[in-house]
């Protein structure tokens, strides 16, 4: 009996010790394990490293280590990496910081392909106004009045007529059948032909409706011309395939810009293009976008009509550049009056909620950007900004080359782009985009302005990486072009301490290219965001 007792004792003592040791070992092991589980390390090796804007030189063949989502080390091939790290090795490849689009218009392509294919917009189209119906009745077509009120969406096939270009394969009612073919133009846009039930629209409006751009766009609020109290972030569809396209093109951070249909539009947001939805918004209350030029009256149209029906160019205000400037001015004067406790009077009053935002813009707490394409619109932007002492960022600036002295005289930052020779897509329908020049970007850079380059709604072959390639064709050095799509926009968006360069401590946003970045023969083969591979085409 002794033996077992002794043995029991000894065993239990040993067991106790062993347990203690095991526990200690386990403890250590646990902590080690915990440390390892938390230490998510990604190593990118064998690539040339560009975009170390902290003063570090480009490395011809080096290593970048991203630990727990942040860049931990940048060095040559001798840089030691933990053995269990995920390794991306692309011989002959290169890496740049994740690209940043300072003024991305999200989803226009989807809206076009989706709705143009389905043949009908999501929102109901306007029905003819009573006065048009009256005119038709006067012309002897009153028997069609009832048909004309038919909701176009209820019609089996919704097609469009171009009043000024009937021969474009889309003639209404097949010519002879429609007695009104010649009067389509007189009927005005947005009307439904009483004979065939088709909607009369110009090419641009047709695209507008098909694309769902403003006012049907979700990226602008058009209940008023002055809506700086609304936020684009509330409208963003984070599951949109457009984000996938951006990621494929190496874009990791974008300023989600509102559409330009309101004179003083909503506030944009800085968002990430991939990753968990929860962490996608970097900044939800970004710049307010004001638009000078014809966009607000060409793309607009959802604004209230004084006649309470649908809206046309004739019934909506403003409908000229004068009107746009007036709305802009009046908004700030009204805000001033409101702040002083005076009543705000007159037509086109901004909503009361807007006044606070307008005062914040005036006070410089809310940044403002102004979209202007034509020379005269750019000059108006400077003039009005001076009038109210506003600081702003100039956006798009297609005709900047025509007014370089004005641009250099003011130190407003410039977000230039997109660069193109001939306008395509949505741009093809605007008369403001005809005089684009390849070398504008070169002139802006040479003037010492440090512009950011944006691709706006363009993707794929005209996306941000290709915009940088175009800029290089215009004469920018690689570093200048790279900076214009990484660090410069990061600074403009106020996120330069997080993204925009390959620096230790910044977010692990890296684009791995299979050749020279922005080269015509190379493309992103992997995109890393916060140390996670979000796109892999190796």
């Amino acid at each position: 009996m002794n033996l077992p007792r002794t043995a029991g004792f000894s065993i239990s003592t040993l067991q106790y010790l062993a347990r203690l040791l095991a526990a200690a070992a386990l403890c250590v092991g646990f902590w080690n394990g915990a440390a390892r589980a938390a230490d998510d390390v990604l190593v990118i090796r064998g690539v040339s490293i560009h975009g170390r804007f902290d003063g570090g030189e480009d490395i011809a063949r080096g290593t970048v280590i991203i630990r727990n989502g942040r860049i931990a080390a940048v060095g040559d091939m001798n840089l030691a990496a933990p053995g269990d790290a995920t390794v991306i090795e692309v011989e002959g490849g290169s890496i740049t910081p994740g690209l940043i689009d300072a003024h991305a218009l999200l989803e226009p392509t989807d809206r076009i392909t989706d709705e143009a294919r389905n043949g009908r917009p999501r929102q109901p189209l306007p029905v003819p106004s009573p006065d048009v119906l009256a005119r038709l009745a006067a012309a002897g077509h009153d028997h069609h009045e009832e048909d004309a009120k038919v909701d176009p969406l209820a019609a089996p096939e919704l097609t469009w007529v171009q009043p000024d270009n009937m021969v474009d394969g889309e003639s209404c009612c097949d010519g002879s059948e429609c007695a009104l073919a010649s009067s389509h133009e007189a009927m005005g846009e947005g009307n439904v032909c009483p004979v065939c039930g088709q909607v009369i629209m110009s090419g641009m409006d047709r695209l507008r409706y098909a694309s769902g751009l403003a006012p049907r766009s979700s990226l602008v609020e058009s209940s008023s011309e002055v809506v700086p109290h609304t936020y684009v972030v509330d409208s963003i569809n984070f599951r949109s395939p457009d984000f996938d396209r951006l990621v494929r093109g190496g874009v990791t951070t974008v300023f989600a810009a509102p559409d330009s249909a309101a004179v003083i539009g909503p506030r944009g947001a800085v968002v990430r293009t991939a990753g968990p939805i929860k962490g996608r918004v970097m900044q939800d209350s970004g710049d307010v976008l004001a638009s000078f030029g014809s966009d607000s009256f060409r793309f607009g149209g959802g604004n209230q009509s004084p006649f309470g029906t649908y809206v046309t160019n004739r019934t909506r205000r403003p409908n000229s550049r004068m009107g746009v400037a007036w709305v802009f001015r009046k908004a700030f004067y009204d805000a001033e009056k409101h702040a002083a406790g005076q009543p705000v009077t007159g037509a086109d009053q901004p909503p009361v909620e807007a006044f606070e935002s307008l005062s914040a813009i005036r006070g410089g707490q809310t940044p403002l950007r102004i979209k202007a394409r034509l020379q005269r619109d750019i000059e108006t932007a400077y003039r009005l900004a001076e009038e109210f002492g506003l600081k702003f960022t100039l956006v798009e600036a297609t005709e900047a080359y025509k007014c370089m002295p004005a641009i250099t005289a003011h130190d407003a930052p410039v977000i230039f782009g997109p660069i193109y020779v001939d306008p395509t897509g949505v741009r093809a329908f605007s008369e403001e985009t005809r005089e684009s020049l390849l070398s504008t970007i070169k002139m802006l850079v040479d003037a010492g302005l440090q512009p950011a380059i944006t691709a706006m709604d363009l993707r794929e072959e005209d996306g941000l990486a290709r915009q940088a390639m175009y800029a290089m064709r215009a004469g920018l050095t690689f570093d200048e072009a790279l900076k214009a799509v990484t660090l410069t926009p990061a600074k403009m968006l106020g996120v330069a301490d997080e993204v925009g360069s390959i620096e230790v401590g910044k977010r692990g946003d890296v684009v791995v290219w299979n050749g020279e970045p922005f080269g015509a023969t190379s493309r992103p083969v992997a995109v890393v965001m916060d140390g996670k591979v979000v796109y892999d085409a190796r």
Partner: protein
Amino acid sequence: MKPLRCGLIGVAVATCFAVSSRQPALAAPPEKVALTGARVIPVAGPEIDGATILIERGKITAVGADVKVPFDAMEVDCSGKVIMPGLIEPQSWRGLDIANESLPVAPFLDVGDAMDPSRLYFEDALRDGITTIHVIQGHNTVIAGMSRVVRPIGLTPDEMTLDLHTAIKMSASPRNGYDRMQQMATFRETFRELEEYIDTIAEKKYEDELEKDKKKVDVGPSEAAKRGRDKLLDADYDDAHLNLMRLKRGDFDAWIYVGAPMDVAPAVALATEQGFIDHTILLLGDETFKAIGELKKAGRPVVLPEDLFYRERDPITGEISETFIPAKVHEAGLMFALQPNPNSSMAERYLTYQAALCVRNGIPRQTALEAITLNPATMLGMGDRLGSIEPGKIANLVIYSGDPLDFGSWVEQVYIDGIMAYDRNDDPRLAEILRLEDVQRKAEQAKKEAEEAAKAKEAEQAQPKQEPAGEPGAEPSPAEGGGDSPAEGGRERRRRGDGQ
């Protein structure tokens, strides 16, 4: 009408022959030109660094790193540059004043009658390094007329023409107002009528000849037609039938547009049935690649659509799929040619970028380069004269500032028939397009200031000897002189053309 028409063709043929073989109509090119020091991409072989290309009377006579420059050759220093064969646009109707035909079947037409040499298109082509353009009619046809191969220089269609009656255009996709049944019925009817016509004239020919010989043997109409066929001469045919007969005989190729996948099989069947499948080039539409199996079976060279990506939204899932067309075609082992995309906002307007796109998407560089040079040359039946830098070929060369597939490279100079036809430094319209004056003026001014400063310094140092200091300003340096004279040739060529 008929003799006049034939006469015209005859004259045109003669002109063409003259133009292509001796070029008496144009200014005599410099006897011998040597382009030295450049990296040469011959396409027909490996790239050569620091190579010399020797051009004699508009033809390439030698290429290589160890070619000796003859004492009487004009040497043009191209070091730091890259030379590649002139690019070839495989099909274009942008040089025509009206691209399409109102006649569904019009094999007697010649694009030369509609070509407008003053089109900016030709100038742009030259600026982009395109030295050869296949001018052909548009797709809106059943059987269209004859195409031409032209150079983008010259003041009349004939002066521009390098090859006359290159191909006959057809479309297997319905023309405007037609459906596919009508389209194919028109083909069948046309070729049936052709046989009928040949029988008729053959029978008549047989009988006429016998009558002439006074050995009249009545063999019956069908036998007479059979016997008479061998005796027929080209001159016996009328305009409406001559070119179709020549097509069947194999004198030239059929370029058939197959705009949809479903058009491939009927087009191949038609060409096989009529016996010209071996002389057929297929012009693909946006989604024709979906019939890749049929294309592969046909094994004929293809011209790819302008947009190399095909994007499609699945009607049910809503997902967008993307296909890179050249990859499919390359995988199937077909010879293909690329064309510029004039609908692009910028990059795809350049043939070299289209080739770069291919490289980016995994097609070997050599194949991509061939698709813009040697392949279209071969498709046009001019593979022995164009498309690569080899001795014996026409000296159509493009000098790039860097690698042609790098979008940052610019076309510096273009040589056509050994004559400098384009010089970037002498292109006021490019400067206007880019508004480069400001940029350039600044750069030039800085350069001039630096030079003057250097000169002043030199003069200061060499004060005792005053004479040499004045000399460089009075006379252009030899390098400048050498660079200028080919440009002079190019200008002179245009001016001479003006006089005719």
